[in-house]
């Protein structure tokens, strides 16, 4: 009674009315209470399990579609790509035993039509202006160049910070620069292979994107190099 009676003082009329015509509590055996609660719980659980069975494949399919679209975009249309799992500083094609594949750190390696690896699509995240940014970027370890970048999730200020996702000129800046990339004022980066033009007025958000990519590349570079060398040796 008290729980709902006190939602908000605004609903005072509501709670007094409830108090007035609520029936007096009948005597019930505790066993009956438990039985009722359990049967309600079981019914709810069953309904939810059924709904889960029906909806989960659709949700997963949608998620896979989004990931695929993002990978294709940042690798500029690879012929096909496969996921690799990052564990202990190395990349493996199969998930280590005992770990949930969905929860592991993943990167995607893309191939062109001849089966040659053209680069990695690497998801990354880090603090932005408002909240954490999630993005995915394409990276070629052979030339140390970025291929592309796409924001996956961001809560930057609408109209200001969110231009890091919506401003195509800014997104295009991430095709080609060598890592470590550095943010420069628009137009000041002529002749600098590392330069990325930042958005005027959204400097902090732009810098956040650059910092996230640099940090991630730095952390993964040895693993990526090793992997490409191994693959190259095997071929």
């Amino acid at each position, binding site marked *: 009674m*008290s*729980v*709902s*009676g*006190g*939602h*908000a*003082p*605004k609903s005072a009329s509501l709670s007094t009315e409830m108090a007035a015509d609520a029936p007096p509590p009948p005597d019930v055996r505790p066993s009956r209470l438990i039985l009722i609660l359990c049967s309600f*719980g079981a019914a*709810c*659980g069953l309904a*939810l*399990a059924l*709904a*889960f069975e029906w909806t989960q494949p659709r949700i997963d399919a949608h998620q896979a579609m989004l990931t695929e679209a993002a990978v294709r975009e940042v690798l500029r249309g690879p012929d096909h790509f496969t996921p690799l799992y990052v564990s202990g500083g190395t990349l493996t094609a199969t998930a280590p035993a005992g770990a949930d594949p969905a929860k592991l750190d993943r990167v995607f390696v893309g191939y062109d039509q001849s089966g040659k690896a053209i680069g990695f699509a690497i998801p990354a995240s880090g*603090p*932005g*202006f*408002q*909240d*954490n940014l999630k993005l995915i970027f394409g990276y070629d370890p052979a030339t140390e160049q970025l291929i592309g970048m796409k924001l996956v999730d961001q809560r930057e*200020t609408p109209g200001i910070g969110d231009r890091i996702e919506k401003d195509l000129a800014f997104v295009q800046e991430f095709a080609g620069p060598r890592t470590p990339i550095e943010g420069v004022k628009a137009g000041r980066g002529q002749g600098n292979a590392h330069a990325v033009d930042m958005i005027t007025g959204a400097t*902090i*958000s732009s*810098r*956040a994107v650059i*910092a996230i990519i640099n940090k991630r590349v730095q952390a993964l570079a040895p693993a990526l190099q090793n992997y490409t060398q191994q693959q190259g040796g095997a071929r």
Partner: protein
Amino acid sequence: MLKDLSWILVSAALVNNFTLTLFLGLCSFLGVTGKVSTALRMGAADTFVLVLTSVAAWFLNRFVLGYAPYLRIIAFIVVIAALVQIVEMFVKKVSPTLFRELGIYLPLITTNCAILGLALFQTNRGYNFIQGVAFALGAGLGLTLALTLMGSIRERVELSDSPIFARSMGIVLIIAGCISLAFMGFGGLFSS
């Protein structure tokens, strides 16, 4: 590690203040902020339950919900309701004075969406145990700050001579909007 934790804490308290930016726990924000003292107490009670919830949610996520993610909402709300009940009994036993002072606010916490919101956000972001507690502490501090600010402004508003049609919740919401605007200034606090 420490920088990570402080980012979580300050982000939850100021940059992404639960009440003023994420709009969680508005019922109590608008309902019990008539006086500073009650607002402060409500904030303290909220913080306490938030930290407990964060711990409970971590346990649930770690040991139970991995097998049945579709039961998440039910499990969280039931655990929160139970927690609030336990806290209520505990406070009643240990300190009847405090219990009297908190009065209606303790059971009110069950339907406070900030608590459930914390559990859900913590799950979505995959925080570990310590990160979760830091997040809950930050959120609690942010809530308390927002409630106290609002309470002190409203005490003054009560005494001021406002037009007849503004003596309603409308003016309170406009004030809340102004505070929220001020809190937007905290954005970018942690960016390079």
